[in-house]
């Protein structure tokens, strides 16, 4: 008896499943999104990209701008390559998008990703630029960037600069600074931004490469000070902080933050995301709690504009990583 009931139930379940699947398929042609969207974060919880995507998804969900659920999924590993490889392999699937970090360019340059921003994914929007700057703790003898450069010239290869990772944005920043100022320092790689700040604040290193949001709270409390930022012009919310270029050490370096989709995304999906992201970056919540608090520069680059920006970035990475000896000959 048990068996016959079960088999009947099975038949029922199969029929229902097929009907539902058929219905979903029909809907998919007319409407996007038609099922749960997976938002891939190729890094561990708590990092910059994780923060970005959870903020965006939080705003979308609160305003009910998506008819279906959105799941943020951390697929961390291989410094981002595991998550981006997943995205590249999902080619054509409109329901997978990911947080965009400079890794999509640098890992391609290093040969750790099989495809880049033009052939492996669809860049939906670059939403913010995160600046990089050099910071010291308040007890430090370096009051200005000139002090730091002078000390580095007096003691070549002795000053220590903390940053996150090797062959990373922070590492390249240090290398570009060395070239621009004609100095030599010791770069000390750390595992995370938090460890980096600790090393700077504890006085274990002479200076650190920081994103503004990593150090701003310390600066406000007068426990740390920034020496210079590697931007083209002074940051709107930190007018007192000089750029390296205006002090005569000309180099520019920054980190982009954006959203990317799979390659071959259908037009309705691209349209949905660009419109939704436009709405997101228009909210006060975004402007106040994300952009302003993290001291980011808000941008809204889409389509060809975004792709060309990334093309330019690729050139810079090729040069810098080549000089650092990170590329295989």
């Amino acid at each position, binding site marked *: 008896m048990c068996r016959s009931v079960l088999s009947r139930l099975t038949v029922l379940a199969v029929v229902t499943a097929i009907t539902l699947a058929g219905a979903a398929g029909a809907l998919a042609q007319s409407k996007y999104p038609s099922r749960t969207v997976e938002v891939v974060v190729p890094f*561990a919880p*708590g990092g910059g990209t994780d923060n970005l995507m959870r903020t965006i998804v939080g705003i979308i969900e609160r305003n009910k701008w998506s008819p279906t659920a959105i799941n*943020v999924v951390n697929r961390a590993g291989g410094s981002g390559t595991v998550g981006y490889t997943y995205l590249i392999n999902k080619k054509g699937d409109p329901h997978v998008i990911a947080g965009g970090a400079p890794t999509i360019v640098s890992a391609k340059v290093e040969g750790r990703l099989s495809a880049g921003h033009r052939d492996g994914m669809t860049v939906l929007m670059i939403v913010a630029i995160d600046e990089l700057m050099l910071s010291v703790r308040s007890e430090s003898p370096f009051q200005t960037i000139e002090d730091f450069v002078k000390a580095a010239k007096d003691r070549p290869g002795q000053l220590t600069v903390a940053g996150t990772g090797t062959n990373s944005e922070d590492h390249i920043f240090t290398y570009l600074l060395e070239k621009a100022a004609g100095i030599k320092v*010791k770069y*000390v790689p750390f595992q995370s931004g938090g460890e980096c700040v600790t090393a700077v604040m*504890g006085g274990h290193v002479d200076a650190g490469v920081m994103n503004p949001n990593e150090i701003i709270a310390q600066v406000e409390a007068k426990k740390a000070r920034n020496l210079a930022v590697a931007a083209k012009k002074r940051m709107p919310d930190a007018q007192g902080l000089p750029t390296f270029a205006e002090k005569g050490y000309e180099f520019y370096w920054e980190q982009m933050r954006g959203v990317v989709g799979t390659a071959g995304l259908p037009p309705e999906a691209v349209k949905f995301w660009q419109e939704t992201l436009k709405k997101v970056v228009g909210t006060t919540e975004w402007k106040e709690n*994300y952009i302003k608090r993290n001291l980011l520069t808000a941008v809204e680059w889409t389509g060809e504009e975004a792709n060309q920006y990334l093309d330019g970035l690729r050139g810079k990475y090729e040069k810098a990583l080549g000089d650092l000896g990170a590329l295989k000959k």
Partner: protein
Amino acid sequence: MDLFANLALGFGVALTPMNVLLAVAGVIMGTLIGALPGVGPASGVALLLPLTFGMSPTSGIILLSALYAGSMYGGTITSVLINTPGESASVVTCIDGYQMALQGRAGPALGVAAFGSFVAGTAGVVLLMTMSPLLAKWALSFGPPETFALMLLGLTTVTGLTGDDALKGYISMVLGLMLAMVGFDIVSGDARYAFGINEMADGVDFLPVAIGLFGFGEVLAGAEGAAKMEILHAKYGLRDVMLTATDWARSRWPIVRGTFLGFFIGVLPGAGPTIASFLSYTLEKKVSRHPEEFGHGAIEGVAGPESANNAASAGAMVPMLTLGIPGSATTAVMLGGLMMWGLRPGPLLFEKNPDFVWGLIASLYLANVLLLILNIGFIPPFERALRLPYTILMALIIVFCVTGAYAQSNKLWDVGQMLVFGVLGYLMRKLGYSPAALVLALVLGPLAERALRQSLIISDSGLMIFFTRPISAVLVIAALAAVAVPLVRALTDALRRRAVVPA
């Protein structure tokens, strides 16, 4: 005094009906998330974060910190009952907790874990409340040389984890260190022993290894025959869960030591609950009057580490609240939340948002009380789950291990890794190697290597950097002594024997 006024303010905030409700919801969800394999505190908090965006910052942090506290308790349950750690900070609890369960003493094991967690969690909040500024300074004084010295000391205690065969214990440890070498090297950027595989470049992840070595390995040992689970004859009443007078006497000091050790380790950036629990275990074995019982169901081996990991999670709040620096993955996620709620975590948080900070502190007290009640109440039903015939339980544990290995990182690769290490764990057990020593080395190894090399980059005088800085000098000398003393003792023993019986 200011403190009491602040605390009153905090309780005023935390004890509104809505916030109490959120704390209850948080601890229940946290306990479940902690008990579920693979889903640890960090992913639990990340998961619920978007939910809190609509709330006030205080309500949000109350929910998340209750969840955090709950998940630290919950991780113990599966470690004790089925030898499968729910999250990494309860891996060490498997060693003696599971042995206690096999002896029909799962109740007291869970009971002492709950009580120790309560004491440690509460004492941790007291320390957090009274000593934060001082502690923040202390945390900052730990640079790479100090971190290396601490890890070195941790590694030397591995002798406490080896079984009867010391040689095989050391082999297990070296094996763990070798596995720790696999993957991206943070200093050079080389992907060591990766053979061009992305997942290998990522390194050997600790939790799937632990789930495999302990959980799946145990299942294989049981699968061999009609497993005899004496646990089935245990009683399940609330009274049988209680600890005996001897249990109390034996657990008292481990709980106290675990609390302090755990808290101070937790304050340090980058160390965290997992390392605290391991160090507590080896410390307890070192000071115990009957070290031979460790590994065979010594209650100290549960009481110490479980107190340590909870105290450490309170300690990790210190750098988060006073400096705005994340001390662990979980607090990193919370910091992201703080910003979304419109707060600026940093040195000025106490001054600018007292209602938030003190509301959080008050809610941590509340969460610990709730958890004690909840967990003591949960013990009988959890124990009853073990009444299932082992032939069924075994299949369920395997599903549990597979699910957990996947859920932690969403990668099938890690599930495969779990399986491989399960078989290895079975063989190690059969041949007298020490899976625990391997796991310890795998946890401490990467931290030790990284700190060593960072120190040497910073240093102008090579290895001397470890001796010119007071904290690291003390720790390094302690580590050297930990190696040298047994060696010298063995040597003198051998000489004395030779003197008595001339060869």
